[in-house]
């Protein structure tokens, strides 16, 4: 398993990491779009070959953000899902597990 923590401003070495995921062409687009969904995004953590399912090569993307919504608003996953499904197909998103959480202020 390879894990990497990606600052919100994506540096060059992360672009190399993204490039290593050659089969996942939407990966960079997902990363670049996340600050739009979570204005208070703190960090993005990614893991490769996590093995969410046996024989899968799923990439796990973990988003951690400060809360900027009220208690009745959608969960972080609901917010991300709405954004992602407006831009990508289900099949494009198939290889990514996105875990989203708010960290205490």
């Amino acid at each position, binding site marked *: 398993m390879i894990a990497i923590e990606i600052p919100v401003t994506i540096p060059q070495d992360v672009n190399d990491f993204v490039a290593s995921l050659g089969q996942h062409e939407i990966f960079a687009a997902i990363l670049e779009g996340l600050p739009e969904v979570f204005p208070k995004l703190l960090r993005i953590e990614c893991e490769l070959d996590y093995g969410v399912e046996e024989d899968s090569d799923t990439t796990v993307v973990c988003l951690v953000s400060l809360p900027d919504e009220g208690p009745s608003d959608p969960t972080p*996953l609901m917010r*991300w899902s709405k954004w992602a499904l407006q831009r990508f197909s*289900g099949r494009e998103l*198939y290889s990514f597990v996105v875990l989203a959480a708010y960290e205490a202020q």
Partner: protein
Amino acid sequence: MRGREFLATADRLSRLQDESDWRSGISRAYYALYLECRESLRRWGFVIAPRSSHIDVSRRFSWPKNSDLNQIHLTFQSLSGLRNQADYDLSPILFFRNSVATINAIRETRFALSVLDAIEADPARLAQAIADIRAAFP
């Protein structure tokens, strides 16, 4: 029983005070959604093999070009990843410091089940979902 009954178990676990309860609650929420999705597919006429059925179910909700199915899949996929961490990774993890992730997982599962119920309640929506799955898996 129905798979969604595990959500009541998840809800009870989320109200307890131990990390093991919150982790178990996420696992129950995942299985509530997985089992409901699997049984829906079977009602719709698809054969889901007992082994590797998680992948088979997941693909049938993600590969078709259908926003209802895709919406359900994103919750399914996220819960799947979270459940793996909850059940197998005992290291300290942000999601399991408190019950928030479990409570969110229950909310997300309820929302995904509401989409699934809406598909099944609307003959046209259901026919479209079935046609889209068949197109993706000819």
